[in-house]
């Protein structure tokens, strides 16, 4: 039965890429808003 478990191929990498991209975007937004406040 174990061999019927599907392999996820390269898609975990796609997931990690999307999460890193979104955290980078959120980080950039925070830095931008702090610069707007203090800059």
């Amino acid at each position, binding site marked *: *039965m*174990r061999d*019927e*478990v*599907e*392999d*996820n*191929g390269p*898609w*975990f990498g*796609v*997931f990690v890429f*999307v*999460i890193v*991209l*979104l955290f980078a*975007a*959120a980080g950039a*937004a*925070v830095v*931008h*808003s*702090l610069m*707007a*406040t203090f800059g």
Partner: protein
Amino acid sequence: MAIGLLEGTYGPDGFRTCEVTGLKIHRSAEVPLKLFGLTAVVALILGGTAALLVALTRWEAVGLLRPTQFYKYLSLHAWNLLIFWMVFMEVGILYVGGPIVLGRKLPGTRLARIGWVVMVASAVLIEYAIWTTAYPNQQPLLTSYAPMKSSALFYLGVDTFILGTVVAALPFFACIWQEKSENPNGTLPLVTFGAFVTGIIAVEALLGGLITYVPTFLWRIGVVEHIDAAWYRQMYWIIGHGTQQINLAAMITSWYFMTHLTAGAEVVSEKVSRGAFILYLFFINMGAAHHLMADPALTAGWKMWNTSYAMYGAVLASLIHAFAIPAGIEAGRRKRGLGGDSWFGWLRTAPWHDPGFSATALSIILFGYLGGITGVLMGQMQLNTMRHNTLAVPGHFHGTVAVGTTLAFMGLLYYVIRLFFRKEWILDRLARLQPYLYGAAMSIASMAMMEAGIVYGVPRRDPVTTSIPGTSFSFSAASPMLAILGIAAAVAVLAGAIFVLVAVGSLLFGKEARMRVPVPLSLTGSERPVHDFSMRGTLAMGLFFMLVFVLFYAMDWMWLSRLWTFGT
């Protein structure tokens, strides 16, 4: 063709057994489920098309629509996506959570069909009323705030849509009644329990809708002379936010169902998860009060009790689910021997190639970070002052509904196509990519709206903010954010179109499905109880989430202390 799609092969008793789940599925439940799912996709197409036009108008460098057109398409966008796409899906989820999970017939099938007909006719009436709105009537947007007058047909359509939804939900409640009558000491499965809580929240919201919209209709046709604007606002949000609470409960029910179906998740504590659903019953309706934070007709005490006290009962419930579901994936996969013993092997080996799982997982993560954190912040009276009526508000609810709920429902529909329509997905690689493309683009659009609203104070619902006629004042500094919004929203609409292409194409041209899920449900693994297995990976991710939560909370208070100089 359409009728053929709705049919299946059943035994003489009307049941068939799902080869994947082992569930006994009766025709009386499966046909309406397909019908409601297909109708929801039609609403998704209409609302998504309007979304593109709205986004390309708020990207003011493009400025696609004139203001009069803008409000028409904004109303169509809101009603199709926030109401029709969601509610048709949610009735379908009730039929999955009730008769299909319980292995029963759907009692009162005729009521389900009557409800569907009334809902579709009402939706068409609302679309027509919005499309043909002309002075002195105004576009309703989602809120249709009285005493601003919209078309009488609009109010009539809303009333009948609510009634149709109640009628369509009745067979679900009858099914639960039959189950409990026959098994008074039995416990409902968690997915059924979640659907039942969703149904109760829905009834509350829909009754609130009738209390609001029946008098408003009577006022609009002249039977009632006066309608109190403050009364309307308070009553309206029973359904205005109530419908979003239905989305939340239905989405979380879908999370439990889909993570079990696709990734081998288990429920690590039935009592804790059920307790969290019950917390929603008592407290989530209070969340509606956060829409009235700046309302002059209500006291500060009323606002604070409903939001800064009672609403935290619902926040606690959400945090419990946010831990319980990933912990269920982690412990369930460890129990099945998947991913080894490392901290995150269970996550690395999860079925990220499967759009049913990836859409669900992205929904859980992105809903928490984008919709959840900002919802708590803006649900607090003090912090709300920074966001009220700015573009940050749509930024928040696109994080909840457009990212969280829509992704969850897309993931569910991928498996409705495979397990109920029994069709293989066409354009397989595009289907695998679609949740990532949609989740990323919609999240960036959501963040751009939040940034434009919080940093620059760009108003919501206003198509012209960077070159306001008659004044030198403008929000032009926010133009880059509006450009990011426009581009990201266009990509999200493209990803939505891919979903529709795959879904409709699979129904029309898909091969007969090879009935399977990424982790066979027959793979039970260890005999030890699931809570014996480590959940340390989820704990680490949960602590990181709380750290981000605290960070944003602290920053918001810092910004509040600098409110009058902020952004200058």
